[in-house]
């Protein structure tokens, strides 16, 4: 009994919980900035720069403005952080899954919205009109990527389940181990591309960072945040990078399993780095920020079509 509780606590606090997620999230954010700089032929900040940013923000004053609702303003970033950590506990690291069999695609889909909602509620609670515009854009972004995301999830579920209902993430990973990784099945390649395009919008990197456009609406929902809550929000962005790429790995590249948890974790981190560079840094480096209506159009036409193609192909059993 005691051992079980200790093991669970280890899962929650160290691996794959708080500490691991935070460390890898910050690492990914650092790599993103470094590689972006190299792509622009700059030296770039050190890889630990996000850690510096985080600690610096912890040491700043936290100002709560007059117009803000104090409770919601301070609670929002913490709720976002906690839900991201909990989400990571449900995403299997190849064959290892902290709470096996309990992870469900729809649950993951909904847990993914909580950090966004936390950002929105926090921004809304700050009482700034800039934040009002920001949360409006954040919500439209959410509506934009949710449609392709559910199509992607359904096509993966259909592929793994065949003629049975399969919403369990660990079953999907197990299926990939028995067959090949999802990405190796040609029908799912459009879905994988769609998912890669969903990741930057979910994380909120350029060109999909309309909600936090610092040059036009002063960082949107984050405008009134300073100090520790801002540090939490910046950390949440970094965590989202890791959680989303790890979800991609679980859904599409789940077939590589070495049997050793530590090695698996290492492979996962490497794959996440590759994916981060591929779908966030690269796109960031070559594009400028979209307008919100263009973002919505892009997701509901182009990305949705890609995902639908996959769903139909899988459905036809080709």
């Amino acid at each position, binding site marked *: 009994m005691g051992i079980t509780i200790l093991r669970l*606590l280890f899962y929650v*606090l160290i691996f794959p919980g*708080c500490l691991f997620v935070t460390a890898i999230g910050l690492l990914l954010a650092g790599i993103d900035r470094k590689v972006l700089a190299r792509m622009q032929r700059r030296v770039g900040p050190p890889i630990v720069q996000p850690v510096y940013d985080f600690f610096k923000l*912890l*040491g700043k004053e*936290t*100002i*709560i*403005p*007059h117009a803000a*609702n104090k409770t*919601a303003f301070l609670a929002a970033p*913490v709720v976002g*952080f*906690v*839900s991201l950590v*909990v989400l990571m*506990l449900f995403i299997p690291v190849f064959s290892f899954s902290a*709470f096996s069999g*309990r*992870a*469900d695609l*729809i*649950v993951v889909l*909904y847990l993914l*919205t909580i950090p966004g*909602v936390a950002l*929105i*509620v926090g921004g*809304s*609670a*700050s*009482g700034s*009109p*800039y934040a*009002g*515009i920001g949360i*409006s854009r954040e*919500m*439209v972004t*959410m*509506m934009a990527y*949710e*449609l392709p995301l*559910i*199509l992607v999830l*359904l096509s993966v579920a*259909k592929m793994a*389940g065949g003629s049975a*209902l399969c*919403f*369990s993430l660990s079953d999907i990973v197990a299926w990939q181990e028995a067959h090949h990784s999802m990405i190796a099945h040609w029908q799912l390649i459009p879905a994988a591309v769609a998912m890669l395009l969903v990741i930057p919008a979910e994380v909120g990197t350029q060109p999909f960072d309309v909600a936090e456009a610092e040059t036009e609406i002063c960082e949107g929902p984050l405008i009134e945040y300073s*100090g*520790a809550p801002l540090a939490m929000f910046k950390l949440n962005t970094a965590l989202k990078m890791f959680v989303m790429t790890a979800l991609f790995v679980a859904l599409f590249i789940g077939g590589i399993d070495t049997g050793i948890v530590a090695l698996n974790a290492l492979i996962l981190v490497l794959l996440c780095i590759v994916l981060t560079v591929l779908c966030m840094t690269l796109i960031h480096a070559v594009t400028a920020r979209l*307008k*919100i*209506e263009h973002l*919505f*159009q892009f997701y*509901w036409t182009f990305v949705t079509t890609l995902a639908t193609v996959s769903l139909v192909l899988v459905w036809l059993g080709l």
Partner: protein
Amino acid sequence: MISYVHFPVLAVMGIFLGAFLEEIFGVHNKAARQGILVATTGIAFLLICALVKPVMFDGEVISYWMGDHVPVSGYAIGIGYEIDQLGLFFALLVVTTSLLSSIFSLRYMERDGMLGRFYVLFLMLCGAVLGLTLTGDIFNLFIMIEIMTFAAVALTAFRGERGFALEAAFKYLVLGSMGSSFTLAGIALLYLQCHTLNMAQLASMLHGNMTPVSVFAFGLMLTGLSVKAFIVPFHTPAADAYAAAPTCISMMFSGMVNKAGVYGVIRLVYVIFRAIDLPAMQVLLAIFGAVTMFIGVTMALAQHDFKRLLAFHSISQIGYVITAAALGTTLGLSGALFHAMNHTLFKGLLFLCAGSVLYSVGTTDLDRLGGLSKKMPQTTICFLIGAFSISGLPPFNGFASKWMVYQAIYAKAVESGNFLYALITVVAVVVSVMTLASFIKVTQAVFFGQCPVSCAGAKEVPLSMRIPMWVMSALCVITGVFYNQVEAWFLRPAVSAAFNVTHYIDVMMGEGTAAAFGISNVKAAAASFSYWDPILWLLLFVVVMAATGIVIITGARERGRILTPEGAEEDGKYATFFSGEKSLPSHVSGSDLFWGFKHDWKSYFRVMQGAHSGIINDYALWVVVGGAIITLWLTVFVR
């Protein structure tokens, strides 16, 4: 001690008697008025709750013949009440809603006159819906629908000094009467065919014996009940009526009145005609449900009145219920009933919040509200719980039921190989996100942001209005976290009752009747869902929260200070950042949100706005066309 078999009738009669007493004693005497109101709804609540153990847990189905007119030689001649688990499930929703609504109305209605008359109608509405869920006689059902509709119309028009209340009541009157007439015509045709009005006997005679006339009657009755459930294209009076009625009545509309329609549809399709195992029937209802949820939510996004927005969400959520019920699977019906129950809870809660805002500010226009979270903190918390529930965020109850609905629809898609259901799954998820969007809009426009001058005097509402809100909030959380218990105690009996037609017939008409007519039950697979464990999730959430909290608290001395504004408003450091300008009262109101989305959808919204013209003739035409489609579909495909 009287036996519990009398309880259902006593509950219904008690409420109607209360209505009568209100008229005699309550017109001038406030204490008598309020006492009678709470006593009758409270007694009904207790009586129905007392039935939970025998009916829900022990699986007994109560049959009760009025005046002991038992069937003679196999023909039911008296009016019979039959309380099975499905009916009791809806009856529980009805009594809960009416009790909470009556408590809320005590202070909420204090500024209105004519309260004696108001409460007569109020109790008539409660009694009618309660009777509707408990009755076993199809003509009695029609009578209850009529009482319900006319009480509802009169209550809609209650605040008739505002012109649009009368207009809304007129729309409701016309369309409601059309719905009732369709139902009555259907019942008349059935009576011609079968010479009986008892639902159990009808079920035994109609099964496997559908003539063109009875199919036509089915179409008419389905249309009539769909009008009562406000399914698109019959939804048009709902938006006006919900917005115009006093809020405690709007809450009852969404909590009971449209549930009555849903109950009627389920009873009709599952039990009386037992057409649910026909794929054509499933497809018809599923399409209607999907269209309802989509049109409901998109129309809600375009609204800028708090209550009207909630009204369109009611329509949209009923779409979920109908779609899930249409699947004809155990999981589907469980999801449908669960969502119907949750809708009663969270939509009631949201309406009460809207009512509180109306009570303390005097308007529900989203463009004129703002910053109420500081003035009304408890209402804000309740509203957020309701909003998160309806948007389906874990661990609130909306998530558990929506997740069951998605699973059921997608399982149906995989099982039947019908791609349509996969598309409906996608629609359902997207509608859920749009629901979230429109509640974010309300949150921003009403509760957060800056406080306009018109809201400066707002105060938290009195205790008797907060109690129902807190009760509903608590129920939203409890049913979300302990959904396994809800499923085992309430949903499973109700669902198996809907599928167990033989028992329904046998209890009413005597053992062996069903077998004599050659009726056997549809074998429905047991529902299976195990991947969502809210308690585990909550536990993890608490552990991680505690860990984060410890880090924050131990680090607090070393970190920067948290500064909260104290004293003068002019303090520059705590002013909202306005690019250096002195901060002005400027608030992003409801209509200004989601610009990009509205821009991309403008042609769709133009069409929808044109369609919701507000002209009663158009709406009546919609009802006729919708009825024609249903009837045609049934005559062609359902035999």
